[in-house]
């Protein structure tokens, strides 16, 4: 069981460093501007403490468990004679890993708060998950066939900017934010380990660059999928039927 806490000190240091600047800013602003009541300040620090313990446990779990399994899955499948299976398995793993990203849950909370349920939580989550799933599947295809990243990135962003002109500004912001939101610790460890593992097992590929490419695609495809969601909303609203939007919601 000692293995469960391997490198725990490093995890604590990393998470502490990540929180530190925001705590400093809070203390600064509170001292000079807000002068919040004691109770509110205590509530903030309690929140920080809980979030800190939570993120430390989460990162440790991901580092000792998911990282190793990701690599093992990648090398086992990449070394197999039927290594084309990396593509569908990559799709499935990309789909399920998205819901476990901490920032995705936070994005959901904020979208609910800001739009008051206009964009349905579950629908957005599914579109994001499909986006990541497609991105991971494409990354596997790149590893197997050795296709240059640029054949995906250039047309991808071209389509993104064409589509972005046709949706509401709300969806533009949301879509581009989601690119940053999905590239969280789960993708950056589990899916990255899976990508590097399979790249090492497939002859003629470069694990370092395949890893970079995967992150680039995962940051891009969800932008596209949320813009498509925005276009669907725009279409159903253009028809002026409230029922249409409900249909979109129910279908997803």
């Amino acid at each position, binding site marked *: 069981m000692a*293995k469960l806490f391997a490198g725990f000190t490093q995890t604590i240091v990393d998470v502490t460093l990540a929180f530190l600047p925001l705590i400093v800013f809070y203390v600064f602003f509170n001292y000079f501007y807000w002068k919040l009541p004691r109770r509110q300040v205590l509530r903030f620090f309690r929140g920080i403490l809980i979030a800190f313990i939570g993120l430390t446990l989460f990162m440790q779990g991901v580092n000792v468990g998911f990282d190793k399994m990701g690599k093992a899955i990648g090398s086992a499948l990449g070394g197999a004679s039927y290594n084309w299976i990396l593509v569908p398995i990559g799709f499935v793993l990309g789909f399920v890993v998205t819901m476990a990203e901490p920032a995705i849950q*936070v994005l959901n909370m904020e979208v609910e708060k800001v739009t008051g349920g206009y964009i349905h939580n579950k629908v957005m989550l599914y579109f994001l998950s499909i986006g990541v799933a497609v991105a991971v599947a494409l990354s596997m295809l790149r590893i197997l066939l050795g296709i240059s990243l640029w054949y995906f990135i250039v047309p991808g962003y071209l389509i993104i900017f064409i589509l972005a002109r046709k949706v509401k500004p709300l969806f533009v912001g949301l879509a581009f*934010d989601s690119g940053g939101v999905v590239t969280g610790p789960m993708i950056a460890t589990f899916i990255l380990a899976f990508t590097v593992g399979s790249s090492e097992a497939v002859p003629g590929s470069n694990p370092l660059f395949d890893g970079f490419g995967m992150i680039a695609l995962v940051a891009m495809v969800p932008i596209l999928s949320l813009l498509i969601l925005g276009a669907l909303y725009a279409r159903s609203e253009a028809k002026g039927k409230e029922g249409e939007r409900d249909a979109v919601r129910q279908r997803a």
Partner: protein
Amino acid sequence: MSVKETVNEVVRSVLPITAAVILLQITVVRQPWSEFLIFLFSVLMTMAGLTLFLIGVKESLLAIGELVGKSLLQSGKLWFIVAFAIAVGFAVTVAEPGVQVLANQVDVVSGGEISRYLLVAVVALGVGIYLALAMLRVIFNISLLKLLLVGYILVFALAIFTAPEFLAVSFDAGGATTGPVTVPFILSLGVGVSAIRGSRTASQDSFGFVGLGSVGPILAVLLLGVIFK
């Protein structure tokens, strides 16, 4: 969301990936069972951690982001808003573990010619400048799409001139800067800033801060690549 609801939500979001891994372990992967047992325990740890994180984040990171956003805009001093945005973008990026990993990778790719400190500083400055742009955009009512379009046109223009190894790394940089602490903070910063601007444009202005924040580091790494070449 109550604690019970949060626990439910977390279990439901971590179970699918766990099920997928278990299924693969049984069918093809066959790691030693002692290793696999550690994975199962790590899942419990991950679930407990994610639950606590989501409970704590509401009263800390989300609260501070909104407060900072609101008081920045109410201060009304343009130089202060810009200086603060650059400072906060810089600080949270330097502290992001993902950026340290990126710095190591760039060290490898450039054969040690681009030092870790230079890269971290340049990327952090990239985030800071773009965060300031995101603030100015809301204040002066500039279209997000136009700002993003200019950003990405610059990205693709620089991509032609940069050393090829830097291309892939640069897009990686966009993802590396947006970690689990930074994202809630920047998201709520946007919500706070736009809440002040009135209800008509509030919902559409709330988002886009994280997206703009990812363009900065891509540009920063590409620029380094051009200079390095």
